[in-house]
């Protein structure tokens, strides 16, 4: 099930709601037929029940969240019409609850499905019809006014529900967006802190002692400078050849550099597209080239995706060698 939009908090268009509309009609029908003996002319109440069924059909066939105008008009019109058709056909003391209840239920549903004003127009007409009936029948004005007031109060509650829940929906949308931003910001903060902590710990171990030595007052020796050159090269490797940051490779590169070999490690690959077995083979060949080099330059480069080779290893010194490391797939 796809989640409802915040505007549809009280969406009454689902299967459950449609079943309910018909179940409600079933209840009214049962009550109407149960009190059949209260009717003087059964044909009019039966026409009213047919009209109710038609309105139920119109409401349940309309799947939009906001009821279409014809369906809403049908739901609204049937309320006062049912009073006109049924009320004067009742014997003295006859059972009225079924049509009053069904009419109010239609107005309530029309109101909840986005036609608040129209529902209130129907309610005013419905109340007027009830009062006219009360004044002109055995029911009496007082009882009719009380019944009309109670039905109007139900529509007040329906309107409060519709308006309140729509307003709540808008508020939920805003709060949900804020919570999402907050959650993203917290996650970003944590991730950045974690990344920073890991990298700084690494730098504290490898580079900070060298920087402290440079910043100090002790004169630097040639040995110090060689150590700085190796550290600087390793930092460059870390920036340019992230895929080649393996211990054995770092150790071999450091040893080669300490022998005076110029080592250039480059990574133009896409880390997500790199096969780990290929990378291991490439590292094996690079380590061998570095171990064998005594002078000149060793350049190892991981190639971008789409090439036949995963990378190239070139040793250009007293001995020249070039390896194109093919991709396994």
């Amino acid at each position: 099930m796809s989640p409802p939009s915040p505007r549809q908090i009280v969406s009454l268009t689902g299967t459950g709601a449609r079943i309910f509309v018909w179940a409600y009609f079933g209840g009214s029908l049962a009550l109407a037929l149960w009190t059949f003996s209260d009717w003087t002319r059964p044909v009019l109440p039966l026409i009213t029940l047919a009209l109710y069924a038609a309105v139920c059909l119109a409401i349940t066939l309309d799947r939009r969240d906001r009821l279409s105008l014809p369906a809403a008009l049908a739901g609204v019109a049937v309320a006062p019409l049912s009073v006109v058709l049924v009320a004067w056909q009742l014997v003295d003391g006859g059972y009225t609850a079924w049509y009053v209840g069904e009419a109010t239920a239609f107005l309530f549903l029309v109101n909840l499905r986005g036609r608040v004003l129209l529902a209130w127009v129907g309610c005013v007409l419905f109340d007027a019809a009830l009062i006219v009936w009360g004044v002109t029948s055995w029911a009496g004005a007082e009882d009719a006014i009380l019944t009309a007031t109670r039905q109007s109060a139900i529509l007040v509650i329906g309107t409060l529900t519709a308006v309140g829940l729509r307003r709540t929906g808008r508020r939920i949308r805003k709060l949900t967006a804020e919570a999402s931003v907050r959650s993203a910001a917290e996650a970003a903060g944590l991730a950045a802190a974690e990344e920073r902590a890991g990298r700084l710990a690494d730098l504290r171990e490898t580079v900070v002692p060298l920087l402290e030595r440079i910043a100090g007052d002790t004169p630097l020796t040639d040995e110090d400078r060689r150590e700085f050159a190796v550290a600087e090269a390793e930092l460059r490797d870390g920036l340019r050849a992230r895929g080649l940051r393996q211990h054995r490779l770092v150790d071999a590169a450091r040893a080669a550099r300490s022998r005076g070999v110029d080592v250039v490690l480059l990574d133009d690959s896409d880390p997500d597209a790199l096969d780990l077995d290929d990378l291991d083979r490439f590292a094996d060949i690079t380590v061998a080239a570095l171990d064998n080099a005594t002078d000149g330059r060793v350049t190892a480069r991981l190639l971008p995706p789409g090439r036949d080779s995963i990378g190239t290893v070139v040793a250009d010194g007293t001995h020249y060698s070039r390896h194109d490391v093919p991709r396994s797939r």
Partner: protein
Amino acid sequence: MNDSALAEARVVRTIVIVLGVAVAIYALLSAGTVLAEAKYVHPAWLFPAVIIVFGVPPVLATISGRISLRVMHLGLALYTIAFLVVVVTWVPAMRGDALPLDAAPWPLGITAVGTVPAAIVWRPAIAWLVVIANSMALAIVRYFSTGALDLQLALQDGLFCLVFSSIFTIVAIVAIRNARALDAAALTARASAARAASVAARMHEHARLDALVHDELITALYYATTDRGELTGSVQVQARRALDELGRLDAERGEPAPVESAAFASRLRSVLLDLSSGLMLTVRGQRTALIPADVADAFAEGATEALRNSLRHAGGGGVRRHATLSLSEERVVVEVGDDGSGFDPHSVNPYRLGILVSIRGRLDAVKNGSASVRSTPGAGTVVTLTWNDR
């Protein structure tokens, strides 16, 4: 408020407020009936029954903004039970005389008040059971309270209560179910946003630290490697600066605050002047909105690196340099350029990492940020940093 049940808590609160208002309205409409029927029941039963039935929902509505969803559920559950107790104790509470046949006990007119809370607290099956239980109980009460004369009328009223109060129950069930679906969808969206933000932040931090390593650490080590005594002072300054930068990063906690345009221009001017005392920053346009801290950082660091590159690679004394900051509400643009030796951007020497790592990487790591480099051998270089505020 707990974000994982945000929608549900809000919807429950709205329903409880509507319920409170509804009960207040029906307290007024039922007052006449309650008073008329008062003589048929014991006052010791009537007072607590009226106070509970008509008093609790408005109280819950009033305090709904200050109590948790859990406490609200507890209050509504107890109210549901109390309402049912009031209904089933109606007949035992009678003094003896039966009600007139046309007078239904007053809880019959407000059945939904006792059944809607169940739809908020429990699953739909239980909520429907509560509707059925209340309606059956009211039919029985209707029958016995009027002297057990008309079973048919009592059953009809019971059926009507069942049908009519179910409207409110289904509205509450739909609203709660939709609110929970919204909460579940929001939870998924939040997790996804957090994952994306985490990856972006990691990349940003990565780029920032790469730039620090390049600009400060590698520079310090490089100069220390080549120094034969003549640069010792400045090499020491560079090393201390690198250590200070590491210390500053180590102490960094949380997100720094966004900056005003004037402060941003001032910072930019300051970092550029540090490197080249003759360079003037030209500021064009204006902007009232603040500039996010990460954008300000990226611009300051990117512009510094662009100028450092120019000083290092563009050539000797005759080279003219410029820096321009263009401000508007839509975007912020910084341009650093020279008319020096230039280079072919397609064949950048791997040792010239500045432009690749420091500038592009840093600006790319900022949302809506970008950097472009225009350069032609012999005709100078222009680095443009752009951030679109949208």
